[in-house]
């Protein structure tokens, strides 16, 4: 039964894709040959396997804990793979290797920020967030700053970050899949974006966090296995002599010795250097504020497991980037920078082209198989990352904005009548601290830890079920919005969006998170100022930067209203986020609540009462 269905569906998918292909123009960029049909078949396998997982896993539970946190029963190893799967987007897999193939050392320089960032996650964030929160970043803040506006601000910033990241990934996916399938027609790109968007909506709405995590695990495993395979083949080809590899790469790069020195990409003048510094700062600080990374820590049972999964992720990400360096050098040495740039100006096809050469060249069976394998891995990467982003985005919307801030808004008329309703303790507290003495002690002392949480969170059961329904709807809505934006933006150069997403995460999410976790005097006003004080400058500065207007590759090439010289706002907006949080706190009319900080600190460091 299943196999019949599989055959049918494979046939159907293959037919559709071939139709798209045959109507499209012949591949103009990649080397000629029919090495794409096997890739298409493998794409279909990836789609079927992931859909199968989603349907299978999606039946395991429908509670909020299942949808947002995958039931919290993943092992550190599994979650480590899933973390690296979430982190290593197609932009990393193909993009970093491509950058190294084109610009040599400057590509290496770019990749290092992505790795060092994990130390911030490991040391300052992972365990504490796991202990103090339930599903999202805003949960951690809300434990201490129980105001709807804090939740709304943090949830809103999370949605902005994930949406920026999502659009960047989907536009990239459109051109990438078209490239891997050997077509450059706008139709193929449009349909790819729609198909990827539809798939991610299916994964998230049906499978929730559990399915997303399994897809990430499989993808990360494939990615690691594929990279190891190519690296081994490459190193064997060079008889283990990496110095020779570097020499040959420099020789075939067209830049000679300068290929192995800094400055090929980021060295043109002071502005370019400042821009790279800004990007580096955003990368190293932004990772710890990415909502889809933070929500991964809730899929393991304890803080210790969160730490160990981060360690696995650091090992996998670090190993991956080391291999990406070797592969990038290999692509230059064996394929040549000119050929790589000819196939795709951003170098995105460097690794697949290298696979073709390593397998025995175009036309050979080995080359075709290896090319198809690497392409399918890249495709799986795209699917997994967009699914993770959609899930994080829908969680921020449903759990923070809808349930935390909107549904729990004070309804004075109802507060007395519905004494048992889940939200009323919160509503009472919202009216003023004077009434806390009545509202808090009874509920808290009676049920201890859980009551404190109940006061913050809406009641379980019906409320959470409703919230999950909203989250599923939000996933579909956010996915649809991302598809529409990506379709509109697919002709635009959106490469800066990933850097921008990291910059927003570093300026809006990280300061408020660190202040909440470590600063006893931090207040509600400080939190709100910190989020908006990082988010607004980041967006405004980008709007007035050369990526939006005033240059040939800008979003609006015709006009020029830019006055901010850098493409990445991080160097200004990150300090502003921290500064705004500090100013908001010291000017706050109400002092910080030491009781709340005590609760957060004890829970974060010991894990008492952790979800």
């Amino acid at each position, binding site marked *: 039964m299943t196999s019949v269905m599989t055959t049918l569906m494979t046939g159907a998918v293959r037919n559709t894709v071939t139709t798209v292909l045959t109507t499209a123009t012949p591949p103009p960029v990649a080397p000629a040959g029919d090495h794409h049909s096997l890739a298409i078949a493998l794409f279909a396998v990836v789609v079927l396997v992931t859909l199968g997982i989603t349907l299978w896993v999606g039946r395991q539970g429908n*509670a909020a*804990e299942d949808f947002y*946190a995958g039931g*919290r*029963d993943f092992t550190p190893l599994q979650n480590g793979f899933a973390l690296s799967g979430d982190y290593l987007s197609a932009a990393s897999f193909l993009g970093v290797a491509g950058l190294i193939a084109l610009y040599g*050392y400057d590509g290496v*320089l770019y990749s*290092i*920020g992505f*790795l*060092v960032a*994990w130390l911030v996650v490991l*040391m*300052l964030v992972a365990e504490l967030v796991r202990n103090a929160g339930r599903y999202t970043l805003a949960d951690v803040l809300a434990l201490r700053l129980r105001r709807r506006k804090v939740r709304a601000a943090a949830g809103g910033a999370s949605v902005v970050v994930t949406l920026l990241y999502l659009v960047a990934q989907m536009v990239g996916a459109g051109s990438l899949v078209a490239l891997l399938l050997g077509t450059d027609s706008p139709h193929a790109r449009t349909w790819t974006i729609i198909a990827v968007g539809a798939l991610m909506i299916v994964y998230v709405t049906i499978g929730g966090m559990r399915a997303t995590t399994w897809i990430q695990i499989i993808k990360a495993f494939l990615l690691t296995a594929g990279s190891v395979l190519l690296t081994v083949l490459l190193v064997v080809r060079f008889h283990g002599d990496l*110095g020779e590899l*570097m*020499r040959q790469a420099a020789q075939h790069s067209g830049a000679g010795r300068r290929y192995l*020195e*800094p400055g090929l990409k*980021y*060295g043109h003048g002071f502005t370019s*250097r400042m821009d790279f*510094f800004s990007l*580096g*700062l955003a990368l*190293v600080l932004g990772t710890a504020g990415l909502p889809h990374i933070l929500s991964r820590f809730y899929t393991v*049972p304890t803080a210790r497991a969160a*730490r160990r999964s981060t*360690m696995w992720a*650091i090992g996998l990400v*670090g190993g991956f980037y*080391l291999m990406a360096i070797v592969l990038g050098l290999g692509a230059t040495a064996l394929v040549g920078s000119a050929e790589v740039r000819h196939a795709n100006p951003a170098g995105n096809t460097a690794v697949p082209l290298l696979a073709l050469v390593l397998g025995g060249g175009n036309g050979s069976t080995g080359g075709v198989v290896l090319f198809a394998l690497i392409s399918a891995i890249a495709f799986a990467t795209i699917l997994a990352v967009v699914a993770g982003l959609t899930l994080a985005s829908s969680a921020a919307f449903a759990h923070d904005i809808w349930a935390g801030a909107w549904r729990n808004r004070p309804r004075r008329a109802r507060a007395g009548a519905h004494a*048992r309703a889940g939200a009323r303790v919160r509503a009472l507290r919202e009216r003023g601290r004077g009434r806390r*003495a*009545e509202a*808090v*002690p*009874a*509920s808290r*002392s*009676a*049920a*201890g*830890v*859980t*009551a404190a949480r*109940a006061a913050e969170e809406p009641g*379980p059961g019906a409320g959470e079920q409703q919230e999950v329904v909203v989250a599923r709807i939000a996933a579909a809505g956010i996915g649809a919005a991302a598809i529409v934006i990506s379709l509109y933006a697919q002709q635009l150069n959106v490469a800066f969006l990933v850097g921008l997403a990291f910059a927003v995460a570093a300026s809006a999410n990280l300061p408020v998170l660190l202040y909440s976790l470590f600063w006893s005097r931090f207040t509600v006003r400080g939190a709100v100022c910190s989020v908006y004080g990082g988010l607004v400058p980041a967006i405004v500065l980008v709007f007035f930067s050369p990526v939006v207007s005033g240059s040939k590759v800008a979003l609006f090439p015709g006009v020029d209203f830019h006055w901010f010289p850098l493409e990445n706002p991080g160097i200004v907006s990150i300090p502003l986020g921290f500064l705004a949080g500090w100013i908001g706190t010291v000017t706050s009319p109400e002092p910080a609540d030491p*009781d709340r900080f*005590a609760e957060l*600190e*004890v*829970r974060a*460091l*010991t*894990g*008492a*009462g*952790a*979800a």
Partner: protein
Amino acid sequence: MPQQQTSSPGQGQRFDWWAAAAAATPVDTPSGPPLDTPSGGAPLGGPPGVPSDGTPGVPAEPAAAHRRRAVPAQPAAARPAPARTEQPAPAEPAAVAAPLDRPVAPPVRPAAEAAAAVPEAVDSTEVYRAVQASAAFQDIRRSYRSFVFPVTGAFLGWYLMYVAAQAAAPGLMRTRVAGPFNVAWLLGLLQFASTFLLTWLYARNARTKRDRAALGLRWDTQDQLR
């Protein structure tokens, strides 16, 4: 959650922890457990509705016994928690410090004396404040912060210096080290090495200095909160 309780303890009067827990039980049971689903593997100290035998008149001893029974429900990792640190928390008033003693010798608390000590009820806030002030917690916090803050400053500085050095000292970066390797590559690879090294050091620090104490304090705190 047990909202009816809001009115039962008189304002400004000592709130009886055990009586409230017991009285709250019937209200608690339907809504309590889903908050800390046992399936999640998250070892909460047990659902709040559990101590159903703790009727107001019951002496403290059975309640303590019950708490002991609840502990095995926690995962095996919890078992070797040795540091059942009974910190008297000297800085706190006696009534606040009392919760910390409970796991060993549950005191029969005279309501009148307690009412005189603190106007507000002993609730989770008091427990958290007491734990925060305890020497065991201060140790954990000190060992965490004294490792993490300097190290974070160091690796962020080292990374930003590395990035800035590309622009600031291009000549130095181009200096050959061995074969095609130059200083820039060497520093880049050292970034990888330092990241792996710091990951290992942090994990070792957490494992040897904090994990056991934190786990012990976790069960202690949850015991008191129940």
